[in-house]
């Protein structure tokens, strides 16, 4: 793990940022990759899709019931959307600042409690909490980066890692102090099951999925079409180079961390109706979110979304294929396979 400023490694167009490759220390060297995998995003999507189809067929043979398999696919996609939503903020921070942000789950938990406040104290619709949660989390993220993490930039990786772990512990226990450990909830008014070709899903999950897609799209546009996005991508690719062309990298770091945290805020509000809200609720998603980020390619918003969907499907279909095992077993089988074939993740580059 070298420290920033990073040496320019892989070209921006392929293979992710230099850091993405540095992290895969034990993966085979880039030259070992088969050229077929380099071709295009579409090939990779097609291959992923083909594997999913095979998994569905296997699950059908195993379960022997079409409705169950279709329900598993639908549930998997919807959960996957939520995973993707949570992972988008994380992947941005991971890709640009090179920080393994263990506090992401805790930021999510703050947004959950903001939603609880909005529902119980103000009595408003839970989704209205977005108005408060997104800007508040943006500011919190900016403050945390500026005052806590910035001094550790350029220091060894484990410094930042321990700092974010400390922040997570701090937030968990502050929430415990203020709200107590009793579970809370923020139900969506009028939430009900909706039939989708024989399977069912709740309105709240369908909405969370839809917004996750929209949000990922907005973030993608921000990164691709705005000056800020271009600067963020430039810093991610080579921060010394970015400095040389006049980009204030410190501000970009702060902005990126704030945007990532705001994403956690938005995700927290959207999943609030789906989960039981406790100070440790955010941690549930931490492991999965990290898997999604690395699977999709660090720093890739599209990768986070696709990775989320793949992990969601894997969990559900894996549950049918390997009954009685933790869903994480199937998830990590897929994870290891992907890393073996494509160490930089499925979409290993920014945006």
């Amino acid at each position, binding site marked *: 793990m070298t420290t920033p400023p990073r040496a320019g490694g892989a070209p921006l167009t392929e293979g992710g940022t230099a850091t993405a490759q540095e992290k895969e220390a034990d993966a085979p060297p880039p030259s070992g990759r088969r050229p077929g995998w380099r071709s295009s995003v579409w090939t990779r999507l097609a291959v992923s899709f083909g594997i999913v189809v095979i998994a569905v067929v296997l699950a059908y043979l195993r379960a022997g019931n079409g409705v169950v398999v279709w329900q598993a696919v639908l549930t998997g996609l919807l959960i996957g959307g939520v995973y993707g939503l949570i992972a988008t903020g994380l992947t941005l921070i991971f890709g640009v600042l090179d920080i393994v942000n263990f506090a992401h789950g805790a930021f999510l938990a703050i947004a959950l409690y903001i939603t609880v406040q909005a529902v119980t104290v103000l009595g408003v619709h839970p989704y209205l909490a977005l108005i408060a949660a997104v800007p508040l989390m943006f500011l919190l993220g900016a403050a945390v980066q500026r005052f806590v993490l910035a001094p550790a930039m350029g220091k060894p990786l484990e410094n930042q890692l321990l700092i974010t772990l400390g922040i997570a512990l701090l937030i968990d226990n502050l929430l415990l102090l203020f709200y107590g450990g009793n579970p809370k909830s923020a139900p969506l008014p009028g939430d009900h099951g909706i039939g989708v070709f024989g399977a069912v899903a709740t309105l709240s999950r369908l909405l969370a999925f839809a917004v996750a897609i929209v949000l990922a799209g907005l973030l993608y546009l921000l990164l691709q079409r705005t000056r800020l996005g271009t600067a963020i991508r430039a810093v991610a690719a080579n921060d010394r180079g970015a400095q040389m062309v006049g980009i204030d990298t410190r501000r970009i770091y702060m902005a990126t961390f704030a945007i990532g945290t705001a994403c956690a805020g938005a995700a927290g509000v959207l999943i609030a109706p789906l989960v039981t809200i406790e100070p440790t609720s955010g941690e*549930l998603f931490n492991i999965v979110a990290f898997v999604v980020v690395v699977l999709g390619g660090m720093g890739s918003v599209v990768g986070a979304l696709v990775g989320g969907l793949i992990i969601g499907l894997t969990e559900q279909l894996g549950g049918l294929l390997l009954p009685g095992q*933790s869903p994480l077993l199937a998830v990590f089988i897929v994870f290891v396979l992907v890393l073996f074939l494509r160490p930089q993740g499925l979409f290993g580059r920014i945006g």
Partner: protein
Amino acid sequence: MKKPWIAAAAMALPLMLTACGGSTPPGASGGGGGGSSPDTITIGSVHPLSGASAGDGQQMDNAAKLAVDDINAAGGIDCLKGAKLKLDSADSQGKPEVGQSEAQRLIQNGAVALLGTYQSAVSQNVAAVAERNKVPFVIDVSSADAILQQGYKFTFRLQPSGTVLAEKGAQFLSDLSKKAGSQAKTVAILNEQGPFGTAIAKTFSDKAKSLGMNIGPQISYDPANVSDFTTQMTTIKESGADVLMVAGYYRDGVLAAKAVSTVKPTLNAVWGVANGAFDTPQFPGEAGAAGEGFFDVNYRLDMTNKDTQKVVKAFKAKYNDDIRTAAVLSYDAVRVIADALGRSCDASPAKLRDAIAKTKLDALVAQDGPIQFTEAGENENATPIVMQVQSGEVKQVFPEGSAQTKPVYPASPGQ
């Protein structure tokens, strides 16, 4: 280089002194040691005050504090010249090794008895510490049978063991459904995959088979990261089972309820066994209509008992929180220790242990009789009862002796 060395020595000295202090016989924080009567008697409480189970752990610790306050307000321990109780609380964080070291620390700080700990794995370690130090340990909540199968002399358990819970769970299902005229035929099982859920599911299905029921699909899940049960519920719906047994914790219980209301399987009952959700006061609120009609077979604070009602009210007044059964068991654990002190008239842990073994005390939770311990330390009258969510409230429904109202069966949950 000199200064830090001196500083280190200065730091180490008091540590060594306290370590020596800890080796004197515990139990005497005022007055003489051993058999005489101290001014205060310390009881150690080990619960998960932080971490994922902090909600339950804090409640249990608060209930123990409330019990100590109530006993002190009533004059303390009479035959020890009105000695007052003091609760020394420790946080196990839900981790066995932390629980173990905290138990050791409490004993060294003079605790004459321990109570706790909620998680079976933690209780297992604390029981070993208690045995080694010959200090009595009263388990309020922890279901694993194995804890009391080591031949321990100093550990006692208030709640019914996992085996009792699961066997009665199957027995009550058979009795209740037969009485209602639509006997349970096929039971699907949804259990968390840890030792707790696996043991409950295994014992339950053995007993259910011996009672003539079929076991439908048995599905286990990981409670730490499950986020949706619709696939599992669809499998259960397609299997045609008429009862769904669920053994798990709070968060997953709520998710299961939501999945039942989304998928709408054709069930006569959702039947929790030692379920961490279905009988809690929060559950009807969080699950809403989805949880209506759910059963749970579990130990239960006895709302038909006047003393229990008093404790429920006092807890609400003091902590602005609805007390759950786990915390009532902590209250009972303090009562058991205080009662034994009142009979031994001696605050030494060994005498206290003998007195606890001879306990005969009415419980605040629903039981078949007073709290009495077997040779192994199990509370022989501990029993689960059947509860059901009716009109948004958890009611005791079966057996008749402890019922507040009649059970509704079939309950057709999610319809």
